[in-house]
């Protein structure tokens, strides 16, 4: 599901490769995950959306650094697959707008205004099969395990995430802090979100680095990135067309750190990336 969702950020499979590799950067969107969902549905403090599933189609356009193409702008259709199922305190969720993909979780603590979930799920993806990367080692998906603390402070929703790869792939750690709020303008649900993400050097090195061995057998120069911080901002609207159809649109902006852009894997570089998407989903 992560891939499906991320696909909307990609103009082609080449772009897909770029984004898979640089999903660290896209984690700006990923980090929005559940908070984005909460904001979109204007859920009350510590309330959970009941079990549901939805399918939809969308179109997105944007500008971003790319691994294999000179053209930085892209436009693409994408599939929306959102859903959640809660059983006692355990849950499984997937929110297309988050990019976090499939997530298994357990609600460990709940008070009136704070909630702590233990979550685990796949995150980040390997390189695409583009010939440019044929001689490079595989970059496999990480399985990130950690905690997600969500708080409701006044009209704002706060979310802090700390996750570590337990699959032994990147062996990396990421931390995010997000704050958002929503407004209802008649039946339109508007939300805004600001966030910051920290990615440690293990994640960057695994996905964006080039080892000496790889450099020796390819045209890429060796590269060992450090940790980095990215910032993200998002504005979105959600509108109930009918009892079963929902319209969503999102404008998203992310900074891209030098640690990302100095990677020799990129064909073109930018210090920011932005996207605009719109989708219609059927809620079962």
């Amino acid at each position: 599901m992560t891939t499906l969702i991320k696909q909307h950020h990609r103009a082609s499979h080449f772009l897909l490769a770029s984004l898979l590799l640089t999903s660290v950067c896209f984690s700006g969107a990923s980090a929005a995950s559940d908070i984005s969902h909460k904001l979109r549905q204007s859920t009350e403090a510590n309330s959970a959306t009941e079990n549901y599933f939805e399918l939809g189609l969308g179109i997105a356009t944007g500008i971003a650094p790319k691994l294999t193409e000179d053209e930085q702008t892209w436009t693409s259709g994408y599939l929306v697959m959102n859903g959640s199922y809660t059983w006692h305190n355990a849950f499984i969720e997937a929110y297309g707008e988050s990019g976090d993909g499939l997530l298994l979780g357990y609600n460990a603590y709940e008070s009136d205004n704070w909630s702590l979930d233990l979550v685990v799920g796949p995150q980040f993806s390997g390189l695409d099969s583009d010939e440019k990367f044929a001689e490079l080692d595989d970059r496999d998906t990480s399985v990130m395990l950690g905690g997600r603390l969500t708080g409701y402070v006044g009209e704002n929703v706060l979310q802090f995430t700390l996750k570590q790869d337990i699959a032994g792939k990147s062996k990396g750690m990421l931390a995010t802090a997000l704050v958002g709020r929503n407004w209802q303008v008649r039946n339109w649900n508007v939300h805004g979100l600001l966030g910051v993400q920290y990615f440690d050097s293990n994640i960057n090195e695994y996905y964006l680095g080039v080892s000496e061995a790889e450099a020796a057998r390819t045209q890429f120069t060796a590269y060992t990135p450090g940790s980095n911080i990215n910032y993200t901002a998002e504005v979105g609207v959600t509108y109930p067309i009918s009892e079963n159809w929902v319209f969503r649109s999102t404008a998203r902006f992310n900074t891209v750190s030098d640690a990302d852009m100095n990677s020799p894997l990129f064909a073109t570089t930018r210090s920011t990336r932005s996207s605009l998407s719109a989708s219609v989903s059927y809620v079962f």
Partner: protein
Amino acid sequence: MNTLLSVNTIVRPLLTATITVILLVSIGKTGTVHAAQDELNTAAQLSVTPKPCVALRKGQTCYLEVTFTWQHPKVGNYCLVNATTNHTLQCWEQHTKGEFSFDFQATMSNDFALRTQASTTDLVSTTIPVAWVYQSSKRAKSTWRLF
């Protein structure tokens, strides 16, 4: 005595019969009046468009610009009433039909009725249903379980 007895014998059944006839006639008339009234009320119409009102989440206020149209075969003073809140939206004097637009805002379905002015009886009614896409429920309170 015999005379008195015979009078009683003749007059009493006559009185009884007369009263019975009068009662039957009056009941018949009342029935006819009620039937006619019911017919008029049945002929009364009230509709609202569009509907339903759809909110994103259960519990959210739902907004909808709606227009009511009503008609009644008999000229009279009528009021459009929100039967759920018992709030009168608009009254018309000596009309047989009317139209009224307003901005519906509610978290739950509301019933509306056409009533004769100063009456609490619904001549005809309709509903603006409030629906939503996502249910949401409060999570069960819990304490630390893992740590």
